[in-house]
């Protein structure tokens, strides 16, 4: 299953060597432990730099969007294995 979303989510992160590492997300009243951060990339929206985190747990791939100006997190893509 592959979905494109724009759902606000809560994220617990760690800050390590000038990097932000998502550890756990809360979406749809469920917690998901992040097992791997596979790719981090940035993109511009006008003058704003947006960060995207491609992360996964054991069965799901999540693409998270962080707006550093407002510290808002969104789940923008979900891919479930199987």
């Amino acid at each position, binding site marked *: 299953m*592959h979905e494109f979303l724009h759902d606000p989510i809560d994220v617990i992160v760690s800050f390590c060597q000038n990097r932000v590492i998502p550890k756990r997300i809360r979406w749809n009243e469920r917690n998901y432990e992040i097992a*791997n951060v*596979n*790719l981090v*990339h*940035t*993109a*511009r*929206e*006008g*003058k*704003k730099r947006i960060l*995207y985190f*491609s992360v*996964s747990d054991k069965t799901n*791939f999540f*693409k998270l969007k962080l707006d550093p100006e407002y510290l808002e997190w969104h789940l923008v893509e979900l*891919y*479930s*294995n199987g």
Partner: protein
Amino acid sequence: MHIDMNSYFASVEQQANPFLRGKPIGITGKHKEHSIIATASIEARRKGVKTAMSTYEAKRVCPSIILYPCDPKKYSYITHQFNKIFRAYADCAEQFSIDESFLEITKAATDYFGAVCLAQTIRQRIKEECGEYITCSIGIAQNKLMAKLCSEQVKPNGLTVVQPKNVLSFLDSCQLKDVCGIGHRTEERLNAIGIYTFEQLRKFPLENLTREFKSYGYWLNEASYGRDNSPVVDTIEDPKSIGHSCTLTENTEDEKEMKRCLLELSDRVAWRLRKKGFVARCVRVCIRYFDFTEFVQQRKFIEPTNNGLTLFQTAWQIGNKWRDKAKPVRLLGITASNLTKGKGYQSLFKKERKIRSLQNSLDNLQNRYGSKVWSRASLLYPPNTPSATCS
């Protein structure tokens, strides 16, 4: 040195999403159906899927293929990252395309052994900074022509070195169309005059070659010896044209739908023209029908423009006049060419000056908040109306 990323868009997606790894995937347009394969993963290639194949055809040859929509911003970012790595090691790096670069390493490497060490270091840095699934094939040779030919030899993750003494024997083991600059048609023309190998090309009199191919004959003769004097340049040249195309979600004969699509494309082209400070003297419209036949027509402007509506009006005028109205349309494309630096002409008329002023304000908004900040009312899709896949 030439570095070519392997199955680039697919590798990036497999790096981002581990559930795609080891599976045949095809990167498509924004909408997966009714699109083409921009890149196939190594697994999909092994099953016969090729670049530019329609998704319908790809599914036919590989029913298990996973179609995955492209994410251009992600690919641009990774391209920027690995080119940064290249610039850290090379004397000079030239980005040849989104997934290929030439590196001048004569001073940095000093000899062929040094070049191999440098190649392995770069490969390791890409693995560490971009991800282990993003791999590249590397070619090392005395010039760009040969380095590119080398990098094509072993995929994925290859490293091929051809020293000057081995150039001719290496070329003789390759096919004519393997060399960048010899396409399918040129190969056919060469075959027609009895040339099938580089050895035959070398032996063919230069006089006859130039008679057949004009000045391109000189280049062919040089290529047959593996010679190429073009330098690695780090400067980005001004574009010769700016264009966008759009595959509709369904083949259509609906003029409204086509107009909407063409207007959207025209606005995107015009925005890029203004952003880069260009005006266009010519617009070209391309229409691809359901049967993959194409119609291309262009028109020159009296006054150069960077206005989306002007581009659209001209493109629609020529497109709608000359297209075959009996055939449903699959794809629309618009290209602005004959570009010159400038802001367009200053109109004497108040209404046009007002429109220009409004355009400047919208450009400022777009610069600040991104391209989705405004839209023409006519482009707001009513609910349940299919949009399109644009590139």
